[in-house]
């Protein structure tokens, strides 16, 4: 791939590669003979973030928090209800599908399930050739073959594997094929929607390493959607934590994992089982379940489970506020004096 892609990450002063402003996706609930709308699922309800060139931003949260919906709305697999999506300075959320098609080249996607992500009736070469042909990246058969070979090299599969069918590969190998397909259009951004969650431990490590290598090699930006906090911490530059369709905290990796500023982030981190027997950690076990996104709680959406909730949380909805450079959290605790703020601790010094 071209040299301009590799040194892009050096230019940090430029506008961000992707900017998302107040993105909303409400799914109507239809019922009855005439399919009347009886309510909405507020899957994504006002999400804003940006991704720099060559940067990894992770979206984390539990199932139903809307993180996958964000990814799919960015890919325009369904139209967003409201909000702006700006790719490299150009608004793309208001384009028609036809206008959007050539721009899709710049965003690749890898989904969770490597088995259903590949059409079982297409050979690997046809699967990979599809985006190459769509974007007119190969003028003739020889150029196509050359690109296919390059893609297979990138994801470290044997070149002659292109003539085989998806069912001849294992889960990890299929995920490599999916990554190759995502790279076929020479994108600037890859959306990984739980891309390693379905894989076995040893294979997961292979794919995580591959993604990291590709990112440095190709200067890719990545939106890494995952519920696996340990993998996220390993991979990412910045993290956005979602709860019930909203971002509750967004921060650089070290700040978020070292000194979370939202009670939900804190609880999420403490809930992850750690492979160290006898590790004495103070665990915050949240009460109850995530409320329904059809009827989210008034005020702060987390107040029904928050161990620190006070009166204001039940009525006022907190907004994302900067608590430290780069670290934003949506929590009223930070308006309290520092002595009565349980999340006021600062980041431990680097070891």
């Amino acid at each position: 791939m071209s040299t301009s892609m590799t040194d892009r990450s050096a230019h940090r002063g430029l506008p961000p590669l992707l900017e998302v402003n107040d993105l909303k996706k409400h799914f109507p609930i239809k019922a009855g003979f005439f399919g009347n709308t009886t309510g909405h699922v507020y899957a994504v309800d006002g999400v804003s973030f940006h991704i720099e060139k060559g940067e990894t931003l992770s979206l984390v949260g539990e199932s139903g928090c809307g993180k996958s919906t964000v990814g799919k709305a960015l890919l325009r697999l369904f139209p967003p209800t409201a909000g702006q999506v700006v790719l490299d300075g150009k608004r793309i959320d208001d384009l028609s599908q036809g206008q959007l098609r050539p721009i899709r080249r710049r965003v690749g996607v890898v989904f969770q399930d490597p088995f259903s992500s590949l059409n079982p009736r297409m050979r690997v070469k046809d699967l990979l050739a599809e985006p190459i042909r769509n974007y007119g990246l190969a003028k003739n058969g020889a150029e196509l073959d050359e690109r296919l070979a390059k893609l297979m090299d990138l994801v470290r599969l044997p070149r002659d594997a292109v003539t085989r069918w998806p069912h001849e590969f294992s889960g990890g190998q299929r995920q490599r094929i999916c990554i190759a397909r995502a790279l076929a259009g020479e994108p600037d951004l890859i959306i990984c929607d739980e891309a390693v969650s379905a894989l076995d431990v040893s294979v997961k490590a292979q794919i995580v390493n591959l993604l990291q290598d590709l990112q440095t090699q190709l200067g890719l930006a990545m939106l890494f959607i995952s519920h696996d906090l340990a993998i996220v911490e390993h991979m990412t530059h910045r993290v956005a934590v979602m709860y019930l369709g909203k971002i509750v905290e967004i921060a650089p990796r070290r700040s978020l994992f070292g000194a979370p500023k939202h009670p939900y982030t804190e609880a999420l981190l403490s809930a992850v089982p750690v492979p160290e027997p006898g590790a004495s950690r103070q665990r915050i076990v949240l009460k109850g379940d995530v409320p329904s996104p059809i009827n989210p709680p008034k005020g702060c959406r987390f107040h029904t489970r928050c161990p620190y909730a006070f009166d204001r949380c039940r009525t006022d909805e907190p907004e994302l506020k900067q608590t430290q450079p780069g670290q934003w959290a949506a929590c009223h605790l930070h308006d309290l004096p520092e002595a009565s703020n349980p999340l006021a601790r600062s980041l431990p010094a680097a070891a």
Partner: protein
Amino acid sequence: MSSTTAPLAGRAALTAKDVAAAAPLPDVMQPKTRRKGAIGYMLRHPTIAIGGFLLLIIFAIAIFAPFLWTKDPTALAPVMRTRNPSAAAWFGTDMLGRDVYSRVLYGTRVSLMVGFGVAFFASVIGLAIGLVSGFVRWADSIIMRIMDGLMSIPSILLAIALMALTRGSVGNVILAITIAEIPRVSRLVRGVVLSLREQPYVDAAIASGTSTPVIIWRHILPNTLAPMTVQATYICAAAMLIEAGLSFIGAGTPPIIPSWGNIMAEGRALWQVKPYIVFFPAIFLSITVLAVNLLGDGLRDSLDPRAAKRV
């Protein structure tokens, strides 16, 4: 794992005598070698083999009917009326003296034509409607309400009504039954399309810049063919039965054409005394429908991906 290089010297010295080998494990079951190729496939799917074999014979009968010692199926012979089966007339003769054996053999042609004709046209039209319905949101509810309406009428009644509007001919019979069968196919295709649309590989294709017609052609259509094929066999069998039923009540193939339904209709009056006139076409109809259904069941089992996942 930094120690991997250090004990290399010691490792080289280690031989089979120094280590504890695991006790060999007994074989719980022996692998069976299975025949490959067509014969192996037939052995593993006996329903396909039996159904296919029967259907092959029936097709041969239809094609070679003139050479299978038949007479003109429409030739009247008043002297030879209602003769019992004998060496001269294997299945006997009917009340106009026509040879039942010849009529039944020629009737095979009508049944197969109707069965396969309806299966083909209903599949193609149903596939198109199902694809539109599965992809065009606003059209979906309109199409499906129409299909619901069609489905609420028993297909034989619908066919009778359609036949009443047209002149009796094999082509019109095929048309009438096809219209009656379309809702079933389009519902099936719509269901398959809706589930395929949710597949991540379709999302991935959209994200790869593939246009909607290409997605339908390349990603949706090939994956609907397996369930369609199975459904087509069932429609084929149903169409044959409906054709016989229509002819039997006089609303189907014109009486001049020997079809199984017609033969049975003509033999109905003499059922008490000359049961063979009804018996032979009925047996042929049953065997043909059975063959097609066996083939359909076999195909379903063979194409069902869940069956392939059995450990």
